[in-house]
């Protein structure tokens, strides 16, 4: 049964849950529960261990609104320049679909599904219902996960059928426009057995206005499948953003998830990756530039539920101006998850006296036959390396940029798709140039 709900454009965020669109009954009920949970759950407090070093004052939601439609949809579609070639391409603005390029006929025939979540909630109700926010938000933002569930969720559902290999990336753009607009991007990917796909989420602001973002992605990688997921965040300098990521990796399957944070004012990334069968592998990567008064707050969880699984995390931060970063990560090995091989590393390069890097790598190990290590380093650009480059005629600011890009390349090199890698590198390099000169 389809239920149409009333449009709520312009309604303050704190006043209700119902939004426009055609959603099935189960989804509307889930949304109502989300709103109740959001009201019930306490706001994070500074003393909360899961918010240690964070700025809970940045979380005031008063004033943010469910926004009206964007003023010029075609202009935003035109500005959605990404990889050039993609298997499918969806553009959203202020929670609404602006443009959709469906996959080629042969891929559709092979069973690939790429459609809005709204459409999938009816057409693929079983799968969406099974996987939509199935993992509880455990890393501190349960309240905001509930808000997402209650909000005008916009985004894409992707189902890659058994054995299908999708060569080109699937590209999704989410735009926010207008002062105090709130958007709720969502990506739900189900990679069935032995399939392979790459998904790129691009998060962008149409203007310099302050905005609120509450995004979630659910990645389900079934046995033997392989998923590459990259989220590139370029929100405006006034944006408060939550990006809550949940990944489930099956037997002999692998997921490479990369978070690239280049914008925003306060950005909280929570990445929960659960290895649910033997042979599972999760690569968790991140590149972050924090400048001016930006805060990038990242919490991760590598959850080893079964033996013989691997996880490898590498997060790298460059900090300039009054930029602040928080990294808090846990490798958890559940009882019986023997032969776990888990690694976690955060590296900070501090480029100004006012920047601050906080690192909290963590281990919780309850099985003995494991190899688990973590590390955290914080340092600055090596003066001798700078001197060396300058001695070869390179200007100091260029030399510094080159060295920081070299630092980031250890993460970017983990992307095997050269086009995607090149694209991300260009975005990072450009942002770095601005950050170093600000």
């Amino acid at each position, binding site marked *: 049964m389809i239920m149409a709900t009333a449009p709520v454009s312009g309604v303050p965020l704190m006043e209700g849950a119902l939004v426009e669109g055609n959603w099935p009954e189960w989804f509307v009920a889930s949304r109502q529960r989300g709103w109740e949970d959001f009201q019930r759950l306490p706001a994070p407090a500074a*003393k*909360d*261990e899961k918010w*240690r*070093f964070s700025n809970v004052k940045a979380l005031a939601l008063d004033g943010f609104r469910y926004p009206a439609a964007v003023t010029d949809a075609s202009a935003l579609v035109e500005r959605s320049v990404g990889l050039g070639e993609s298997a499918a391409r969806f553009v959203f603005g202020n929670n609404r679909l602006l443009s959709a390029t469906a996959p080629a006929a042969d891929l559709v025939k092979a069973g690939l599904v790429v459609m809005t979540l709204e459409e999938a909630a009816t057409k693929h109700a079983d799968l969406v219902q099974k996987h939509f926010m199935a993992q509880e938000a455990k890393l501190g933002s349960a309240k905001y996960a509930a808000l997402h569930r209650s909000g005008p969720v916009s985004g894409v559902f992707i189902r890659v059928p058994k054995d299908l290999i999708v060569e080109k990336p699937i590209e999704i753009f989410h735009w926010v426009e207008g002062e105090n607009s709130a958007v709720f991007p969502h990506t739900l990917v189900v990679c069935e057995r032995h399939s392979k796909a790459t998904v790129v989420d691009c998060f962008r602001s149409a203007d310099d206005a302050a905005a609120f973002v509450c995004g979630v992605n659910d990645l389900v990688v079934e046995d033997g499948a392989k998923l590459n997921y990259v989220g590139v965040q370029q929100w405006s300098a006034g944006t408060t953003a939550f990006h809550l990521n949940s990944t489930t990796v099956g037997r002999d399957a692998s997921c490479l998830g990369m978070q690239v944070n280049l914008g925003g004012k306060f950005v909280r990334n929570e990445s929960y990756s659960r290895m649910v069968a033997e042979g599972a592998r999760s690569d968790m990567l991140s590149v972050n530039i924090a400048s001016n008064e930006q805060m990038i707050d990242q919490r991760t969880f590598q959850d080893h539920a079964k033996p013989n699984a691997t996880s490898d995390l590498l997060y790298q931060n460059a900090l300039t101006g009054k930029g602040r970063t928080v990294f808090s990560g846990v490798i958890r090995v559940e*009882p*019986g998850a*023997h032969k776990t091989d888990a690694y976690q590393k955060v590296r*900070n390069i*501090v*480029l*100004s*006296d*006012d*920047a*601050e*890097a*906080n*690192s*909290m*790598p*963590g*281990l*919780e*190990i*309850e*099985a*003995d*036959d*494991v*190899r*688990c*290590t*973590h*590390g*955290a*380093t*914080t*340092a*600055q650009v090596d003066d001798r390396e700078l001197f060396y480059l300058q001695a070869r005629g390179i200007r100091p600011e260029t030399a510094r940029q080159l060295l920081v890009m070299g630092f980031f390349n250890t993460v970017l090199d983990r992307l095997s798709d050269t086009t995607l890698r090149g694209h991300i590198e260009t975005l990072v390099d450009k942002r770095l140039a601005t950050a170093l000169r600000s």
Partner: protein
Amino acid sequence: MSDAQTQLEIDREKGNFRYDVDYEFDAGTGLTEKTIDYISGVKGEPDWIREFRKDALKKFLEKPMPTHWASKDLENIIFDNIRYYLAQGQKPKRSWDEVPDEVKKTFERLGIPEQERKFLAGVEAQFDSEAAYSNIKEAVGKQGVIFVGSTEGLKEHPEIFRKWFGKVIPTGDNKFSALNSAVFSGGSFIYVPPGVKVSHPLQAYFRINAENFGQFERTLIIADEGSEVTYMEGCTAPKFDTATLHSAVVELVALKGAKIQYITVQNWSNNVFNLVTKRGLAMEDAEVKWIDCNIGSRLTMKYPGVVMKGRRARGEVISIALAGDGQHQDTGAKMIHAADETTSNIVSKSISVGTGRATYRGLVNVPRHLKGCKNNTECDALLINSNSRTDTYPAITVRGTGNACQHEASVSQVSEEQIFYMQQRGLTEAQAMSLSVNGFVNDLVRQFPMEYSVELKRLIDLEMEGSVG
């Protein structure tokens, strides 16, 4: 690796005995202002200390139990059931012959006077709330070194004592430092004059004899400019059916160019809640080094710290924790860099046996506009049985461009191949396991004085007995 019943009682036997003692002073159970008046009255303390205690009691009552990050086991402490002050007499004996028989027997069984005769520069032995015996070798005393119990330090040397007392660890630092400040008794007061290098270690030995007792010693060590001192403390308690609380506060002050090395070998029985606050202040070119070995107890929460306040100050924490069945060693280190070119080093090794749980909790802080600060942290955990547990929770904050910090932690198990290899050469599985574990901590144990490293190796051997097979 197969699971097995661990026989952790074995090593407890050395300390697991008690004597019936007629206590002359007993504050009774529970903690109110009356308890403080009783303690202050018995000790004949000046008003400022009585007020200090009462203010601390208020802070203790106000502060919530740290449950948002700490173990829930803390909730099992029933403060109303604890006896906060128990003593046979007020003044420590200077001669071993004068010490009451049951107390003398206790320390003789633990080998304390024997150790003093052998190599110590001085020794203080605390029995429940008060020092039972305190002596310093004549040669060391002649150099101007003061080594007395904290009660005596307060009375006899107020001009030095008051200047630093409660300054490194403020009363309200945490709930247990407030508790200690309210009811403290015993502990050591040491002052080393400028330039004096105490060649042999000073030692204190803390013994809990009574049931339902809380031991709250307070130690203050001041090493004046350019001086050096090593202090060693050992602790035991017999095993009772009820929980016992040990909550000490230790403050170290290393003035310009001074060096303090503080060694703890703790072997509490597995009913003791061991909740200790230890911090050192290092001035210019000074060094504070904590060597901390935690074996036993039901729950230990202890994070020795160094505040590096002067330029080129250095802080170091070397720790070994061994968590046996049902035990939780929640230990770690805090390094607060507060001046340029300060350096700190943390090396922590833990071993979890049976259902034992070892936790490393660390804090490294480098504030803005400091230059040339460096920290290195290494944490290694060894898991012996499949139901052992280990956790690592460091928190590192670095501001500015002139500093560098690195943290590394690893978790591993004793390699089956290694055990097999040693068994092929005639060792039993338990011997092979002990050898491996001793190898794991060897580079740290080597930093202990010889007598202690021998004792440690033996304790590890005993702990490992029955952990395999």
